[in-house]
């Protein structure tokens, strides 16, 4: 009898837990649906390193079902990302304007996967529904995206109770320290396309650039032997850093939410102590061991970055063993 009660209690608590997880993931799929299908004009600020960067973000779907999107930084030199369906253009002070062929605006403050297949993150993360709160004058649902291991940061999202739209987002460490925050300051849905998107409809986009196959998957001499679960190689190549002109082997990994770059090159010094600096949630790890400089960049904790860097080995050497 007692066992039966135990089993009953366990199963109810278990089903409550699964219900909670299901609830959280349905919130997240509702979010990506909203980001893909609704017409909205929003403003938000990104808070990191003790300063705030203001952005405008417009999204809409035209009569033919094509998505239009503008993300612009409002302070400092112009930094815009424009999207017309499958063409994304970057307007930045560092480079002449260029376009790439893709359906997602990458490198922005809001992870591109939020408007993509967000449920695919289930492999590496747990989704937890945390209850309600009030953000931007609306009642908001709090959802946590928590890494299944200790090697990644967690995300906390505040979603609008009515529209499932993102209202606030924090990137937090395991210890609960907030590294980066996105806070929406204005949100407006409309049936018509927002005005700036109408202009974008008729605007010409910068030329599309191509990344030759050779730069996508070069055979490199070095190999990264350890990565947190769920990270896959996106591409690897050999290129020069534009600022320092340092030639380097380059590998890019992603778990869907987080991108991690690994740079490996010869150094003029024999040894340099590890260094880790952070810009918001993005960490830059750098060390020289036996004349080989290894750097790891991405939104990951310092310990993870060091483990990745320490796992780098010569490929040929590795093969011999």
């Amino acid at each position, binding site marked *: 009898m007692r066992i039966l009660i135990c089993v009953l209690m366990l199963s109810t608590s278990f089903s409550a837990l699964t219900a909670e997880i299901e609830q959280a993931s349905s919130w997240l799929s509702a979010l990506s649906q909203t980001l893909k299908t609704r017409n909205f004009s929003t403003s938000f600020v990104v808070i990191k390193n003790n300063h705030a960067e203001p952005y405008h973000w417009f999204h809409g779907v035209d009569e033919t079902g094509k998505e239009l999107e503008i993300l612009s930084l409002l302070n400092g030199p112009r930094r815009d990302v424009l999207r017309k369906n499958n063409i994304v253009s970057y307007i930045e002070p560092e480079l002449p304007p260029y376009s790439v062929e893709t359906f997602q605006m990458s490198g922005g403050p809001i992870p591109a996967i939020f408007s993509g297949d967000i449920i695919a993150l289930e492999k590496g993360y747990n989704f937890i529904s945390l209850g309600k709160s009030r953000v931007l004058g609306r009642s908001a649902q709090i959802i946590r995206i928590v890494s299944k291991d200790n090697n990644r940061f967690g995300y906390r999202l505040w979603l609008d109770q009515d529209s499932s739209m993102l209202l606030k987002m924090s990137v937090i460490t395991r210890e609960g320290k907030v590294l980066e925050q996105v806070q929406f300051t204005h949100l407006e849905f409309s049936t018509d396309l927002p005005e700036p998107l109408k202009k974008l409809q008729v605007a010409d986009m910068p030329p599309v650039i*191509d990344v030759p196959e050779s730069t996508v998957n070069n055979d490199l001499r070095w190999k990264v032997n350890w990565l947190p679960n769920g990270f896959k190689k996106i591409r690897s190549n050999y290129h020069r850093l534009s600022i320092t002109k340092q030639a380097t082997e380059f590998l890019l990994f992603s778990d869907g939410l987080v991108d991690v770059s690994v740079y490996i090159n010869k150094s003029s010094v024999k040894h340099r102590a590890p260094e880790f600096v*952070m810009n918001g949630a993005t960490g830059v790890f750098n060390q020289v061991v036996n004349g080989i400089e290894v750097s790891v960049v991405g939104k990951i904790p310092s310990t993870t970055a060091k483990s990745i860097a320490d796992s780098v080995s010569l490929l040929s050497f590795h093969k011999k063993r």
Partner: protein
Amino acid sequence: MSEKKFETVSSFVDDVIIHDESIDEIIKDKELSDTWGRYQLIGDIMRDDVPQTLQLDLSAKIAAAIDDEPTVLAPKNTAKIENSFKAGIINFVKPLGQVAIAASAAGLMVLGVQQNNVVQTNDIAPMQNIQTNPLIGIAEPVSFNYQQPTQMSKKQAYIQQRRLQALLFDHKQQIKLTAINTAETKKANTPVIIPLKDKVENLPK
């Protein structure tokens, strides 16, 4: 003698003024002050002025409770032990943060001048803008869990700062280019122009 004393106490309770010395005597003598207390209590009871629960000897109970209390010489700082890791980082970062801020400020100044010169002499050197732009992120040391480097010279610190910024910038650029490949499966067969490839990738032969 003692009968007389009790009488004094009694008259004192009844508000009959007596000599100051006898008051002192009552206070000093334990028996007499107990008697004083009892007389007052009797008076209270007769006037029906007693609380519901009688604490006959509150002072003695409090004194006993204080005696029972363990003597705490120095409270244990458990919070500090928990946070020692964090505190370590903060202590670590402080001096370094100052160096880094100084270094990045120096970097901004130097490059600002360079960039102005470039603009005057040359039309395009867009890469030089990077350092002057705060959006690329002045990488600020936040946690620095590893070995502290031996005193870096200002120049070395600046070079290192620049190196880290170069990595951060390249990482951000590479993420943008990545999109192409993830979307490659959906790629339409539009002709591709490659005018900016060299600038974006700076590929070596």
